[in-house]
């Protein structure tokens, strides 16, 4: 018979997982971050020394700078791209499902293969990026080999893969009642009026969702950054820095302290977006 414990019975594997894979590791992580622990040796308690060292470490600030710059540009650009694509795909035209498939494809594929392909596309001499630019008479840059063009390279890749958000916007666009547009038309709103007075305000909850998800994903960027790199340490993303410390130099304490810093940054950003959203998000 069902009683008040039945639900918990169904939850039990997950609850066990929280204890084993979340609670215990987090407590352990708090301790590790306060130690000097080369994985093979003994952990030595050093208090907050890791955090002190991190804040003095130029490579940490470099990786943070790279990641923040990327997130600050890639997230809004990604939202703008995906929303524009969804807006166009929402028109009553032919071949919409064909377009949708094509636009969504880059978001589905990821991993090492995509990073490898982009590295080859951006090859300054033999890559197609500069081939296309040369075709229209522009001398292409050195991309990943030029510190000034590393960030633009990553932005290019991010925009290419931005289609993942399209479906979330399409669902939202389909939900907007036509009567709202008709009412706006009666009030004399044209194409832009309808876009800025009706569509965009009603889409703010979806912008909010993609803003949070996109920010988290940008700060967690690992695979392309690990494979592609970039000149002048401009491709040193936070997670690559963390990975190298943990699994190349085996500085477990130091790397765990980095992980906590990332945790605090992401928590802070999420709360901040959440707080400001009350000012710009349309109440649905």
């Amino acid at each position, binding site marked *: 018979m069902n009683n008040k414990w039945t639900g918990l019975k169904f939850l039990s594997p997950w609850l066990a997982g929280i204890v084993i894979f979340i609670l215990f590791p987090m407590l352990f992580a708090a301790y590790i971050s306060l130690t000097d622990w080369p994985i093979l040796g003994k952990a030595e308690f050093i208090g907050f020394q890791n955090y002190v060292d991190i804040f003095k470490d130029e490579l940490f600030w470099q990786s943070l700078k790279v990641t923040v710059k990327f997130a600050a540009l890639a997230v809004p650009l990604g939202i703008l791209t995906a929303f524009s694509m969804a807006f166009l795909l929402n028109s009553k035209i032919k071949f919409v499902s064909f377009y949708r498939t094509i636009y969504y494809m880059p978001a589905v594929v990821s991993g090492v293969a995509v990073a490898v392909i982009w590295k080859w596309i951006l090859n300054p001499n033999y890559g197609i990026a500069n081939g296309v630019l040369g075709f229209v008479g522009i001398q292409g840059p050195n991309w990943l080999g030029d510190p000034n063009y590393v960030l633009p390279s990553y932005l290019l890749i991010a925009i290419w893969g931005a289609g993942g958000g399209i479906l979330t916007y399409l669902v939202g666009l389909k939900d907007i009642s036509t009567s709202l547009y008709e009412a706006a038309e009666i009030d004399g709103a044209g194409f832009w009026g309808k876009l800025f007075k009706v569509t965009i305000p009603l889409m703010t909850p979806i912008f909010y969702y993609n803003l949070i998800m996109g920010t988290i994903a940008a700060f967690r960027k690992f695979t392309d950054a690990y494979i592609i790199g970039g000149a002048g340490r401009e491709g040193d993303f936070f997670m690559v820095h963390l990975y190298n410390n943990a699994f190349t130099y085996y500085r477990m304490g130091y790397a765990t302290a980095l*992980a906590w810093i990332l945790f605090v940054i992401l928590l802070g950003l999420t709360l901040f977006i959440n707080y400001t959203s009350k000012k710009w998000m349309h109440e649905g």
Partner: protein
Amino acid sequence: MIKDKIIKKIKKLGRRDERYKLLVHVILLSGVFWMMLPFIWMISTSVKELEQIFTTPPELFPTSIQFGSYKEALDIIPMFKYFFNTFVIVFGRLGGEIFVSALVAFGFARFEFPGKKVLFIVLLSLMMMPYEVTMIPTYIFWAKLGFSDSYLPLIIPSYFGTVTFIFFLRMYYSTFPKALEESAYIDGASSWQVFWKIYVPMSKPALITMGLWSFMGTWNDLLGQLIYINSSDKFTVQLGLASFSSITGGQTPYNALMAASLMALLPIILAFLFAQKYFVDGIKMSGIKG
């Protein structure tokens, strides 16, 4: 007179509409070119002769076609072995990830129990929690148990449920009418039977979507595999491809590298093309409607 004016106006509107549609098609088609360019470039490079690859300016299409680079790619990295290894992890995770997540989602959606509100907040916050914090302690945990350089650390955690899957399935199950199970309970069915005989069969499309997400997540996960797998005979597709350049060294045979990349992407592309409906439904199901 007025009639003529109206007709003229409609015609004008119609023309404007046509022009707008044409403009949309032009924009969308140029987008198609941009979206497809990396795929075209990959395929084109993979069938080019090596001499045609290193030309300036680069040529988008091959002048002559060869498939020897595919064989070369298989000689450089044992791709089929890596496929097999990856599928061991994919299928090892798949069952647990979906079954346990569905179980937990059912518990959340259909029962009242002490601490439910708190546990739901825990669920939501875990969706945002960076696994980076738990990554290193968990690695040390598995290493101490002697399980590093094995697939178990990548597979076992999936049998404790996956937060995003639980979240989506809970939402999905909440939309099921209660009447569905009430008669079953009257007939003496247990909660387990209701889950297994009614909820699981009825949520098949959602479970397939979760299966696809699970497959894609495992297939594309470089970080986890990088951390836990060291010996090259246990490499996955991602690790194999990542090791490609270090094996060839010096001048990379880009046609073979692109051939290997295409092979690595193919399962995902095929899964997407054949099961697109489930991807789309999955997004709708997630209820991102504000």
